[in-house]
C-alpha cells in the first residue's frame, strides 16, 4: 500500500465516520417534505435513535441498493409509489416486518405480500370538475371507465403517460379488466383529451378552473395544497373554482395509491427500523403528517386535514391490491404507448 492509498483511506474514513454510530436508522427515501426534519428530530428525541437520510429518485435508489448488496447501510426504503415497493420486493431486497402493532392498524390490501412493506399514507386519484360546465347529471356516479364515452370529447385534462400516477391508474384498470379491455378503453379515452398532455397534476386543476377543460384527473392532496395558499394566490383562486368527484363509487371504488416503506434484508439496524415504522404509524405522527401533506391517513381514528375532508370522507376505496400496480406497470406503459397517450 503506497502513500496515496493511505491518504485516500484516511480521508474516506473521516468522511464515513458517521456510519460508526451505534444507535441509528438509515433511510433511503424518495419522499420529501419540509416537515420531515422536524419529524425525524421528534423520533430521535423519543427513542435516542438518530435518523440518517439519503433522498433521491426511487428507481435510482433501488439501483444503489442493488450494487451495495450485502454491504448496504440502508435499513428502510421509503417511497411515494406502490410500483417501486413492488419492484424492491421482487428483487428480494425486503424482509417481512415483524410487528404486531403494525399489522393490527394497517389493513391487508395496504401491506405488501408477506408483510414486506407497509403503507404510511394514502392518496386518491380523483376527478376535478368545473361546476359551470359540467352538469350534476353528468358527474353523478361517473367512473374512470365512463370517461371513454363520446360525450366527453375534447373535455378532459390529464398529464402525460410518463407520470407514475397515471401508470398506476392504468395498471389498476388492467388488474380489473385485463389488457385488451383496458386498451379499448384507453383508445377512446385519448380522443377525449382537451389538449396534449402537459404539466403537473396541479396544472390540470388550473386548466379546469380556467375553462381549458371541463374535467381533470389528478391526485387528491393537490387541492389541499392549493387551497392552503402555500402555492400562491393564483392557485388558491383556481382551487376555489373546482369541485372534487370520487369515481367508481357504485362499483369497486376510487383508485388509491400509497406512500409506503419496507425494511431491507441486509438492514444493519432492523430493530430501530421497526421502531421507526411504528413511529410513523402512530396516531400523533399520522395526524401531523396528513396535516402537512394533505394525504389520507392509514389509521382509522385519524382524520384527514379539514380542507380535504370537506370534499367528503368515508368514500369507497378501490381494494385492488396496490402490489398489482407494480406488477402491471410495464404493461400499462406499453399500452399507453400503443394508444398514443403521449
Amino acid at each position, binding site marked *: 500500500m503506497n502513500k496515496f492509498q493511505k491518504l485516500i483511506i484516511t480521508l474516506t474514513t473521516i468522511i464515513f465516520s458517521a456510519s460508526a454510530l451505534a444507535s441509528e436508522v438509515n433511510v433511503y427515501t424518495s419522499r420529501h417534505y419540509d416537515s420531515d426534519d422536524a419529524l425525524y428530530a421528534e423520533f430521535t428525541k423519543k427513542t435516542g435513535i438518530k435518523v440518517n437520510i439519503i433522498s433521491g429518485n426511487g428507481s435510482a435508489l433501488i*439501483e444503489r441498493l442493488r450494487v*451495495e448488496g450485502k454491504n448496504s447501510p440502508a435499513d428502510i426504503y421509503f417511497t411515494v409509489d406502490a410500483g417501486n415497493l413492488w419492484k424492491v420486493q421482487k428483487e428480494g431486497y425486503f424482509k417481512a416486518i415483524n410487528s404486531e402493532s403494525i399489522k393490527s392498524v394497517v389493513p391487508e390490501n395496504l401491506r405488501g405480500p408477506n408483510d414486506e412493506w407497509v403503507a404510511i399514507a394514502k392518496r386518491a386519484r380523483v376527478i376535478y370538475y368545473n361546476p359551470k360546465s359540467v352538469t350534476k347529471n353528468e358527474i353523478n356516479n361517473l367512473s374512470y371507465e365512463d370517461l371513454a364515452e363520446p360525450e366527453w370529447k375534447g373535455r378532459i385534462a390529464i398529464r402525460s403517460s410518463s407520470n407514475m400516477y397515471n401508470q398506476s391508474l392504468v395498471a389498476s384498470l388492467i388488474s380489473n379488466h385485463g389488457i385488451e379491455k383496458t386498451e379499448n378503453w384507453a383508445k377512446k379515452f385519448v380522443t377525449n383529451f382537451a389538449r396534449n398532455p*402537459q404539466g403537473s397534476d396541479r396544472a390540470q386543476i388550473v386548466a379546469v378552473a*380556467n375553462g381549458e377543460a371541463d374535467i381533470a384527473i389528478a391526485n387528491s392532496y393537490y387541492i389541499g395544497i392549493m387551497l392552503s395558499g402555500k402555492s400562491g394566490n393564483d392557485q388558491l383562486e383556481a382551487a376555489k373554482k373546482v369541485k372534487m368527484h370520487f369515481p367508481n363509487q357504485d362499483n369497486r371504488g376510487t383508485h388509491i395509491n400509497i406512500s409506503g416503506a419496507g425494511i431491507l434484508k441486509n438492514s444493519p439496524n432492523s430493530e430501530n427500523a421497526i421502531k421507526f415504522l411504528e413511529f410513523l404509524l402512530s396516531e400523533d405522527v399520522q395526524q401531523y403528517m396528513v396535516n402537512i401533506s394533505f394525504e389520507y391517513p392509514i389509521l382509522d381514528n385519524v382524520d384527514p386535514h379539514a380542507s380535504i375532508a370537506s370534499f367528503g370522507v368515508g368514500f369507497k376505496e378501490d381494494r385492488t391490491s396496490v402490489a398489482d400496480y407494480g406488477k402491471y406497470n410495464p404493461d400499462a406503459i406499453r399500452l399507453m404507448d400503443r394508444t398514443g397517450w403521449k
Partner: protein
Amino acid sequence: MVLASLLGDYSDNWAHLYDYVLVDYISNTLYLIIGVSLLSLLIGTVTAWIVTTYDFFGKRFLEWALILPLATPPYILAYTFTGFFDAFGTANNFIRDIFSLDQSFIFFPNIRNIYGAVIVFSFTLYPYIYLVSRSAFLNQSRSMLEAGRMLGLSQFEIFYKLSLPIIRPAVIGGLMLVIMETISDFGAVDHFAIQTFTTGVFRTWHGMYDLKTAMQLASILLIFVATFVWIEKISRKKALYTSGTSTFKPTKKIKLLKYKAFISFFICFIPILIGFILPITELIIWAISYNLSFFNEKFLLAAMNTILLSITAAVLCASIALIINFSIRFKKYRFSNFLSSFLSLGYAVPGLILAVGIVQLFALIDQNILFNSDIILTGSIVGLIFAYIIKSYALANSTFESGFQRISTNLDDSARTLKSSGWNLLSRVHLPLLKTSFLTSILMVTSEVVKELPATLILRPFNFDTLAVATYIYAAEERMFQAAAPAIAIMLVGLIPIILLTKMISSSRPMDK
C-alpha cells in the same frame, strides 16, 4: 459501464419501442438538436461579433452580462417560462390587465412544446458559444480584417466570409457542449412533455423497470454523439488553425452612435433578458410570496457543500484535462487522445444514467480492489467528486483544446531546440500561455457542478445536501414556490465563477481597454 450494456441481451421491450415510440424519440431529439444548434449559434456568434467589433454605450456591461444565463439551469428556465407564459401565467395576466381584455384572451402562444424547449435550451446554453467565439474574435489577426475592408467587403461580409470560417473550430467545440447538454437534459423536456431519447430512457427504466434496455438506449445516444465528434475531427484535420504570427495587434473597434448603438445594445440585451433577468425575477416573486425561512443552518450547510465540492472537482478536472491535452499535443499518444474523447462523452449521458454507470463501476472497485477494508467509494465524497469529473470533463477539455490550438507549434519547436520538454515545457512555456484556459475551465466546471443533480442524488453520503438537491426536493413535486429560494441560491452561487470569469476576460487583453 453504460456502453457495456450494448453487449448484453436485448429484451422484448425493444420490439415495443421500435414499433411505437422510437421514431418519436429520434425525430423529437433531432428537431431539438437542429433547432437549438441554429438558434444558439445565431445568438452566440452575433452577440460575440457585436461586442468585439463595435464600441457603443453599454458595451462593457454587455460583454460580461452575456455570460450570465450560464447560471440558469435549463430546467429552472423551463419552470419559470411556464409560470410566466402559460395561458394564465404572469405575462398573459399582465397583458389582460393592461388592455382590460376578456379572461379567455391569450396573447402569448403555448410554449409547452418543442419550440418552447428550443428557446429554453438556446437561451441558457448559448454562452458556451459566445465565450469561445468572443475570445476567437479577439484573437483574430487585425491585418486579415483590414485586408477584407480594403477589398471592399461590408461589415456583414467580413463577419460571415472571414471571421466566421476562422473561428469555426472554436465554435464547433462550444456547439458540441450545447448539443451534449441538450440531449442529456431530462428536467426541461419532461416539464414540456416532449418525448425525447432521454425521456424515453427514463420511461423505460422507471416505468418498465428495464434498466438494461434504458442503458442500451443511452448507449445509442452516445454512439451518435461520438460519431458526430469523430466526423468533425476528421473534417478539420487537414486545416491548421494556429496563427503563424504571435505578434498580436488588437483589432480597432468601430464606434457606433445613436440608433445603431441602440440596436446593437438591444440585440445583445435580449438573450440576457430571457436567459437571466426573466427567470430570476420570477423566482424572486415566488420566493417572496412563500416565505424566507429557508435561510437556516441547513441551507448554509448545503451552500457550503456546494461551493467546496464544485471548486475541488473543478480544480482536479481542469488539471486532468490540462495534462491529457498536453500529452496529446506533445507526445501524440493515441491512448490519451482516445481517453480524452471517451471522457468527453460523459457530458452527453443523461445524468441519472451516468450516475448508475458510476455506481456500478464503484461497486466493482469496492468489491474487487477495496474488498478487505471497510471503505467504499459508493456514497463517499471522493466518489462524488470522481463522478463530477467524469460528467464535466468535456467542459474543461474544450477550453484546453482551443487554448492549445492558439499556441503556435513553432513555439514548441523553438522550445525544444532550447532543450525544454516534458514537464518543463508544460510549466514554463504552455502554462503561462494557458493561464486563461486553465481558469476558464475551472470556472466552467464549477458552474456546472453547482447545477449538477442526478449524480449527487444517488452517490452522496447520508444527510448530505447541496443546493441543487434542496431545489430538486421541491421542484420534483412542482412546489415551485418552495423551490424558488434554493434555486435563486444556485443561480447566485453559479454567478460567482461567472463574475470571476468575466473579470478575467476584461483583464486578459489589457491592450483592449
